[in-house]
């Protein structure tokens, strides 16, 4: 019998053993008390009705859900006290679905508490390991099995078995490979890489879709730009703009601390990638007096007057800057891609 429980416990189910010799004796389980529904058939019937009532309410609520979906106008706004002005349709759908789900849950809980069997079922705890006889027996069997299979003797079988086991997971890798193409060189280039000295690409204002001249960009202003020829209607617009997006600022040339950055710009107009070098959020919280650009995701802060150096936060390297100049008609153009990949770092990133 169990060593954990006092002998007397099993004999009288649920009766606590009070022994003055041993004040810390296990009191055992409390006595089982029947519920009202166990002894009173009327109470049981009532509980049954209550449970079914909840299920019926749930059905009605579902029907109400479908009915309100079909009948309530999506634009209708009503006043409902603690919520204020709300869309009647949203409110009706939320309420009916909520009631339908809640009543199923509440009905199930009520059923379990009042009508299902409530006999206590103690699960006693025992040491997990098997006793010595059993263990010795298993070890014996294993040894015999190993000897009979010749696993230790026939090295070729053993080695090929290990090899095949090691290779099996590869099929998983092949299957999962379908989830996405390798990035290849796609992260190295942006839409600006088609620009060359002989066929430059104009910078186009995202607001007006027009190319810009330097005199349009006043000091203290902020402008967003994309390469000419990238249309919003294009199928891959979102993929492209995620790499090509520029933010253009103009800083008095004397205030630009980084000479290389000044040279890449045009008369103080600087074109930086809009993509944060931490994990790639679009950043453009530009403070025109401090020339800091802040990323809303993890607060990386870049000093645009100093080559977009990281002055705070988790970003690993400065924002890439696009070299810009003007063409004969005076429009701002780029004659090549960024010198480094835009966006967050990755393993194969050159630097």
């Amino acid at each position, binding site marked *: 019998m169990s060593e954990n429980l006092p002998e007397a416990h099993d004999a009288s189910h649920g009766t606590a053993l009070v022994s003055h010799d041993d004040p810390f004796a296990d009191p055992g389980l*409390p006595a089982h008390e029947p519920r009202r529904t166990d002894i009173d058939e009327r109470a049981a019937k009532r509980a049954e009705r209550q449970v079914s009532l909840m299920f019926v309410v749930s059905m009605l609520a579902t029907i109400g859900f479908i009915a309100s979906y079909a009948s309530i106008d999506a634009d209708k706004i009503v006043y409902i006290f603690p919520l*204020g*002005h*709300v869309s009647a349709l*949203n409110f009706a759908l939320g309420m009916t679905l909520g009631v339908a789900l809640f009543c199923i849950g509440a009905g199930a809980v009520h059923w379990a*508490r*009042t009508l299902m069997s409530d006999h206590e079922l103690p699960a006693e705890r025992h040491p997990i390991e098997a006793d010595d006889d059993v263990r010795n027996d298993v070890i014996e069997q294993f040894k015999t099995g190993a000897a009979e299979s010749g696993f230790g003797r026939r090295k070729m079988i053993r080695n090929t078995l290990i090899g095949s086991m090691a290779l099996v997971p590869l099929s998983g890798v092949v299957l999962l490979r379908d989830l996405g193409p390798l990035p290849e060189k796609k992260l190295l280039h942006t839409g600006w890489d088609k620009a060359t000295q002989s066929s430059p690409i104009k910078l186009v204002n995202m607001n007006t879709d027009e190319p810009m001249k330097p005199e349009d960009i*006043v000091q203290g202003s902020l402008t967003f730009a994309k390469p000419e020829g990238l249309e919003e209607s294009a199928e891959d617009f979102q993929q492209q703009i995620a790499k090509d997006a520029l933010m253009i600022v103009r800083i008095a040339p004397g205030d630009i601390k980084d000479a290389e950055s000044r040279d890449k710009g045009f008369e103080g107009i600087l074109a930086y990638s809009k993509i944060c070098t931490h994990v790639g959020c679009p*950043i453009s919280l530009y403070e*025109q007096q401090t020339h800091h650009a802040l990323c809303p995701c993890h607060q990386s802060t870049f000093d645009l007057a100093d080559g977009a150096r990281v002055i705070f936060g988790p970003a690993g390297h400065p924002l890439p800057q696009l070299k810009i100049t003007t063409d004969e008609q005076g429009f701002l153009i780029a004659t090549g891609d960024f010198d480094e990949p835009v966006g967050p770092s990755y393993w194969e990133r050159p630097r």
Partner: protein
Amino acid sequence: MKKLSARRRHPLAAVVVLLLALAATGGLYAAFAPAEKAQADSSAQSLAIDEGKKLFAVGCSSCHGLNGQGTSDGPSLVGVGSAAVDFQVGTGRMPAQQPGAQVPRKKNIYSQAEIDQLAAYVASLGPGPVTPTPEQYEPSSNDVTNAEQVAKGGELFRTNCAQCHNFNGKGGALTNGKYAPSLEGVDAKHIYEAMQTGPQNMPSFPDTTMPEEQKREIVAFVRHTNDEASPGGLTLGSLGPVTEGLFGWIFGLGTLILIAIWVAAHTTKAKKS
């Protein structure tokens, strides 16, 4: 004739000629002088500038210098234009209570007439953006064109403004205690002027990169988001994941935990049924 020549040597002859000459010059001037209206205007203008200068000396010069040239406490106002004055003083930001990371919006203590005088004075210091007229900033009152403006403005807002002011114009945090203020309840005129002039740390969006019409569309969108009822009821401040997550964790999960405790506590073992 004889009579005239006889009097040529008269001692008063020179005086008569002088008078005639003066009269002729005066007449010619009266005939060719610039139109009367312009004269009246510029005098009213110079009156406003004079008045503005006095107000400036009292309210602004301690930081911006007696002639608006700027000091170590305040930037130069040469070339900021009347729109900047109308915005800064009209929203109560100026005169500033105290120097700090950012000057907050507060109760405005100047009348619109006084603001106009101040603006006239500052505008006279150097050319800059001019206070806009209602035709420039007021969104269309026609329902159809207004809806179109709201739609276009929403797109422009998400490109240019949402990063700082939040998708709903509720504002957001910047660096070192600076913040982008909420756009709720801000005058259409002041929103327009802010885009035009770039107050404090906000970058400007001049007409060359964001034409007048687009600014008006943005104003239409901001006004729409301010006025429209929220389809979901409780907006929780429209701040996005922060308040919504907090609400979900505390009230949503909290309620579930309480229900679970209640269900478990009221079992037969607890001698209740």
